[in-house]
């Protein structure tokens, strides 16, 4: 159920009117979501959902408890409020308790709701992807994919009178095309707030070409290679690093960003000077919610500038305790690129490996920020400025910091969806990096 700003405000007021706690925060999320899935060039399932979740966190002094439900009925709303209060009373005092924020917060502008996306009816979805299935069929490929559109809202209110509302739309197209013999595979995954940015036919053409190219991979020994990581692979590297960029873990000496016993590495040049990363809910390509789940404004923040670390995310509690500013976790990430294409990066490479995607990335060592994972859906050897032939998949062991420090060149930035963070709003370039560590061969396709 998509509530308007006014409807959500009234509902929150009603929920809070039941509250007997010292303080409380209500979050309501809802919307309409539709999807279709296909496999073997034929539709398999589809779905449409009308959702709403109402969550309340009640506090008595420094004790907190929460409860949630999907209801709109007064009696059940009251029951959710009572449950959260009972849970709070049973809970011991939290040493890190923070009072709800005051009203009067001011939020950056962010336009993430597009009529173009919202107006697509569930019944229109099939025609949007019919070209994809036909293209696969024509090229003797097997397409399997997923197409989703959403309209949604988030509203937050608390007993101090704070109120925030954001609505957004979302359209995602993700498709894998495999060759009939199962030796070749390629995938494309894109999402936008404005469906007009989602060029499904163009993406489908590119996908079928790349899938045919990936057929019959040859054996390539593991080792360190110059690698060109396509946008999607870079997305996983960058978002993978962000989880570690916390002030507290740095201050407590538990993180890569700790500085030998005296604080953190802010102000240090840790990456190639080509690296510039910021977050900005007002970004036109990757708009995002301009406030946190407790209603704090998320503003334009520089994280890395010319390779120098500018900021680490800092919770309200840790900010107060350490006398710093609260730096909320970003709601989007934008890494600047250069005015070049991926083809330009390949053309300038004598010998290297082109990686289209990563998969199944897991942390190996937190302090060194070492990640492991697999390549998937197309790896190619580059020789003399062109893709020579497809090669096997690899397992890799690499640190995002190393990758971002060993940059030789980069392409223009695009909004893409990574394997590990499908809802992240991320804009990144493709990267050409030195000595990427491919540790072992993986036989799977």
């Amino acid at each position, binding site marked *: 159920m998509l509530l308007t700003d006014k409807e959500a405000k009234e509902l929150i007021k009603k929920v809070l009117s039941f509250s007997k706690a010292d303080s409380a925060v209500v979050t309501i999320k809802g919307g309409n979501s539709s999807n279709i899935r296909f496999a073997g060039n034929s539709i398999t399932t589809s779905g449409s959902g009308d959702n709403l979740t109402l969550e309340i966190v009640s506090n008595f002094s420094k004790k907190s408890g929460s409860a949630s439900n999907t209801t709109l009925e007064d009696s059940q709303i009251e029951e959710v409020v009572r449950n959260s209060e009972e849970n709070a009373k*049973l809970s011991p005092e939290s040493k890190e308790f923070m009072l709800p924020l005051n009203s009067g917060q001011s939020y950056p502008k962010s336009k993430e709701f597009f009529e173009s996306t919202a107006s697509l009816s569930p019944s229109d979805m099939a025609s949007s992807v019919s070209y994809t299935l036909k293209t696969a069929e024509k090229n003797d490929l097997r397409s399997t994919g997923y197409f989703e559109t959403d309209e949604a809202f988030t509203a937050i209110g608390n007993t101090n009178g704070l109120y925030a509302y954001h609505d957004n739309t979302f359209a995602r197209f993700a498709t894998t095309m495999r060759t009939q013999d199962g030796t070749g595979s390629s995938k494309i995954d894109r999402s936008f707030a404005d469906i007009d940015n989602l060029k499904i036919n163009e993406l489908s053409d590119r996908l079928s070409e790349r899938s045919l190219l990936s057929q019959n991979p040859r054996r390539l020994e593991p080792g360190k290679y110059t690698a060109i990581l396509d946008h999607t692979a870079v997305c996983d590297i960058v978002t993978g690093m962000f989880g570690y960029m916390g002030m507290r873990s740095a201050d407590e000496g538990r*993180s890569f960003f700790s500085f030998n016993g005296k604080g953190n590495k802010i102000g240090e040049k840790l990456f190639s000077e080509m690296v510039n990363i910021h977050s900005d809910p007002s970004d036109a390509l990757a708009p995002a919610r301009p406030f946190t789940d407790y209603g704090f404004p998320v503003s334009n923040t520089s994280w890395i500038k010319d390779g120098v670390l500018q900021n680490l995310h800092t919770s309200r509690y840790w900010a107060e305790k350490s006398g710093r500013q609260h730096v909320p976790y970003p709601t989007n990430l934008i890494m600047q690129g250069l005015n070049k294409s991926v083809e330009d990066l390949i053309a300038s490479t004598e010998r290297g490996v082109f990686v289209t995607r990563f998969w199944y990335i897991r942390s190996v060592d937190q302090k060194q920020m070492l990640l492991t994972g697999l390549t998937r859906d197309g790896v190619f050897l580059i020789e003399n400025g062109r893709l020579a032939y497809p090669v096997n998949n690899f397992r890799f062991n690499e640190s995002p910091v190393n990758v971002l420090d060993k940059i030789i060149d980069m392409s223009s930035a695009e909004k893409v969806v990574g394997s590990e963070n499908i809802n992240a709003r991320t804009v990144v370039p493709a990267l050409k990096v030195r000595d990427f560590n491919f540790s072992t061969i993986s036989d799977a396709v």
Partner: protein
Amino acid sequence: MQNNSNESDMNRREFISNSAAGCCGAVIGGNIIENAFSAGIITGDSSSSDLGNFLNMTQDDFRKLADTAIFTAGKNGAGYSDLRICRNRNQSVSAREDRVQNISDNSSLGFGVRVLVNGTWGFASSHLLNEDSIAKMSILACEMAKANSILQKTPVELVHTPSYTDSWSTPVRINPYSIPISEKIERLLEFNNIATKQGANFCDSFMWFINEWKLFASSEGSFIEQDLYRAWVQANPTVIDKATGDFGSRKTLNAPMSKGFEYVNEYPFEEDIRTAVDNAKMKLSAPSVTEGKRDLILHPSNLWLTIHESCGHPTELDRALGYEANYAGTSFMTTDKLGKLQYGSELINMVADRTQEFGLATRGYDDDGVKTTEWSIIKDGVFVDYQTTRDLAPLIGNDKSYACAYADNWNKFPIQRMPNISLQPGRTKKSIDDLISETEDAILILGDGSWSIDMQRYNFQFTGQEFWEIKNGKKTGMLKDVAYQGNTIDFWNSCDALCSEEEYFLGGSLFCGKGEPGQISPVSHGSVPARFRQVNILNTKSQI
């Protein structure tokens, strides 16, 4: 992806949620769990089951809702339709040392209407449970099916199932919702206290109770009510070596099960927590393993996850047919290998069973309304069958479904999910001590650790919680940094000894991930300790 930051920032959770943890099943920790909570949901009215009790609705009221869905769908062209009304409740309490970390109580109620119009599926769902809303969603589901039929190459066919009017509940002895939260907190703090007294520097622990109530009604005349319960409690003590700054931890070895609060009283937590602390200390000073080929004895607390990844996932028929190629992956066990592939040695018998006592995938009926059953997946080492649903079974020429359809909530389309799949005990009497005494040189592994397996399920790498060196029939001491890596076929064919049924142990996970949009599913895997010859052992420290 795991996150190392302790800063509790809700935005981060949102930003990184929906990780492709996937397909791997058994994600313990990390985002799948958070997703589970956001998908799950609950308020704590402690009344249970009687049809509609919590909704103040009678059986007639539900019949009326079902009739509305089925009548409206029929009028709009559906040859088949079903209505699923679900209420999922999810209660969790967690504690660290002497403090409570979190108490939450979530509930989610809604319905989904699924229709088949001219051989194409349509599905629509809503949190508003009333006749108008049901009629509206039935029409929308039919509209979607009609519009989507332009992409249908071959019409969907459903194998026959008898119709049932029935109700089924997990046999629970103590309803977990009848126990006050304060008592649950007390038990957790007691667990942490035991660990600290035993010498742990830290201990975190949690309790989760899940209740899934659902009503299924179909145009074929079925009317089935089910009330499912699951429980999981775990403690994880950590010890720190002050001299080196190294830390080691060892979780309790129990797995989640379909049980009520009696689960908390039945497992010997106190004893296992003390052992966990002692063994975590021992692990800190244990020698690091030498790489190379070694024999392995795998305890069921470790082997369940290997069964899950290397037998459970590749024998999902939808994966084998390529339905999951865009996310979870495909399978090396393709349909041409059915009845031919020597999957494992002759000792290997894997049985799928959705009726198994305490199994997490156990229930009376699946979300197609098919009565659950048991069947062989691997027989005397040979791959003999898949997991199926009503719409998948005809694709390999089967005339009945094995009842593997499941949707994790009212707003999801049911897809093929894993039944409990278990390795059958050996026929000759053998205890784990017997097995150890018959083994010259091996490593014994207990508990599950990290895992990684490729998208076709050939190559895997697993760690564990405890690693013991076996020399000349005796446990000689502990090892650390052990991972075993293998190829599914080589691994299961190298199995040359199984313990007998006295050693049977049920492992499992609440969070097997699959599908788009992502869904979680609970599943158990039982086994006995088993020996595998000449498996590749890696040292996890030297991989870095």
